[in-house]
């Protein structure tokens, strides 16, 4: 009887041993096939590791309830659970936050766990990830070279302008029209409307428009013409109030400045357009300035202004809005002319020097384009690839 029991135990042992070892082997197979990777997040200021994985092909994704990702911090006994992830998810970025801030150049261990709907689970292999700070974005190397070259050339021309102020700058008809516009309004006894675009102060075009406003405000102050400046952005409004106030002060007429003429309307695009259209129809300004960044409202403003019989001077760097202004306005500053106008009006050598620098840069770009086109057509693609 005892012998029989021994045989049964032996047979049971023989029967289960392969299963036991196959279980271990099977688990190892699954672990290694997760293909878990933890790499430093590229182009960042450190403190982030990107973890990616792919589920083993022999696992049915429908059977998985969720995935759990764990991080083993150096020296910590227990892992930190980074979150419950959807079964279809294949990557996760462990980013810095107050609760789980990652230290740079410190190895972190990651492990993934798949929880099945039947309660079973499998774990992946452990992988190490280290986050690093990137001090230079290599992808922007060409832009960096271009920026250094451009800044260098413009600075050189500004420096040259200090010693040699004899620059030839082609005549801009629009600049003459600005003076003409102010004079016309003065003669007619009507106000001037100045719209510095519908963008925020972050836009360089808005600042360029404010620079022109400074010159226009001075002329208005000299001639005693009312200047109306409606605003879509409250920061732009405060800047413009100061600019106009200073312009009036600089020509010795601080009392003539009316703060209520540089005012805020709304941040809403179409509500702003409606208000400005209303001003144009009611006040009938003799000259309308539309300078800065414009969007879909450009034609609504320009056409309403044209219907009131005002002289209209526009300028924008928005390529899509330029045709509307060219069609509906009397004079238009096209693209870069908007930026050049302030320098042209002030006639300051330093400002004009920068225009010279821009022209040199344009010449260099033209050479690069021509050279690139010729080389590409000859079968040499290295310039195109590098750029």
């Amino acid at each position: 009887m005892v012998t029989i029991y021994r045989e049964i135990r032996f047979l049971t042992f023989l029967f289960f041993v392969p299963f036991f070892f196959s279980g271990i082997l099977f688990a190892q197979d699954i672990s290694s096939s997760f293909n878990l990777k933890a790499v430093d997040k590229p182009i960042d200021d450190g403190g982030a590791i990107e973890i990616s994985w792919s589920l083993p092909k022999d696992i049915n994704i429908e059977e998985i309830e969720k995935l759990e990702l764990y991080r083993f911090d150096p020296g910590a006994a227990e892992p930190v659970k980074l979150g419950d992830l959807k079964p279809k998810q294949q990557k996760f970025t462990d980013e810095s936050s107050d609760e789980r801030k990652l230290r740079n150049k410190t190895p972190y261990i990651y492990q993934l766990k798949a929880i099945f709907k039947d309660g079973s689970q499998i774990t992946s292999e452990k992988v190490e990830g280290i986050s690093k700070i990137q001090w230079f974005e290599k992808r922007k190397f060409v832009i960096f070279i271009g920026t250094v070259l451009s800044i260098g050339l413009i600075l050189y021309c500004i420096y040259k302008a200090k010693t040699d102020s004899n620059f030839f700058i082609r005549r801009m008809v629009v600049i003459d029209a600005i003076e003409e516009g102010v004079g016309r309004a003065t003669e007619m006894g009507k106000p001037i409307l100045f719209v510095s675009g519908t963008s925020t102060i972050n836009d360089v075009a808005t600042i360029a428009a404010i620079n022109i406003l400074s010159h226009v405000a001075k002329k208005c102050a000299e001639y005693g013409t009312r200047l109306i400046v409606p605003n879509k952005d409250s920061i732009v409004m405060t800047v413009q109030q100061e600019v106009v106030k200073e312009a009036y002060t600089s020509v010795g007429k601080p009392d003539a400045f009316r703060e209520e003429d540089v005012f805020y309307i709304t941040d809403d695009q179409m509500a702003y357009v409606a208000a400005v259209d209303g001003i144009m129809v009611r006040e009938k300004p003799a000259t309308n300035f539309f300078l800065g960044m414009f969007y879909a409202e450009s034609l609504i403003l320009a056409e309403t202004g044209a219907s009131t019989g005002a002289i209209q001077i526009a300028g924008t760097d928005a390529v899509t809005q330029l045709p509307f202004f060219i069609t509906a306005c009397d004079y238009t500053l096209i693209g870069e002319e908007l930026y050049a106008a302030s320098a042209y009006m002030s006639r300051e050598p330093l400002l004009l020097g920068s225009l010279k620098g821009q022209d040199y840069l344009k010449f260099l770009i033209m050479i690069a384009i021509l050279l690139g086109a010729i080389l590409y057509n000859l079968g040499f693609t290295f310039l195109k690839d590098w750029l």
Partner: protein
Amino acid sequence: MKQKLPLTICFIMGVVMIIQYFVPALNSLYDTIRFWLLVVSGFVLCLGIYSLVRVHILKIRRKAPSWGYSYVTIAGLVWMSLVGFIWGKEEGTIFMNTFFLIQVPIQSTMFSLLAFFIASAAFRAFRMKNLEAGLLLIAAIIVMIGQVPVGASFIPGIADLKEWILNYPNLAAKRGIVIGVGLGMLSTALKIILGIERSYLSGGGK
């Protein structure tokens, strides 16, 4: 001092912003500065509201042309603020209903004016006064006919011609302007960072 301090801040921030564009290590600094801008905007909005109320109260007092509308503006401002603060701005609240049933249709009406203005602008633009205007007219006709399916089905090859006009002469001119704008922006930004251009600082360039 009134000008030196802002110019110094402008120079430092300008240089830091140029550097951060190439240095990923400064990404968080960029985000922080953008956050500051949001905070500043919040405060400056109060100045904007003050300006709006002041202008309209002055209009009412002076009985300026169409001063009655100023009552509507102030009433609208007060109404939206009150219902927003009291009942919130979730779906179905008075605030959202006023927004969707009054403001949105008015905005759409303003926007739809574009269709009429485009027609009147096109009439002015396409008058064949000289050779250039004539070329513009011909190009516009080809593009307009080529853009609609019925045009392409009646006139074979017009769709390809339209594509050629848009992708070659049109794109070349557009890129020329864009390159000029890029250089203009760079130059203006540089002048502001270096304090050469000070018109925006209420210094009138002096």
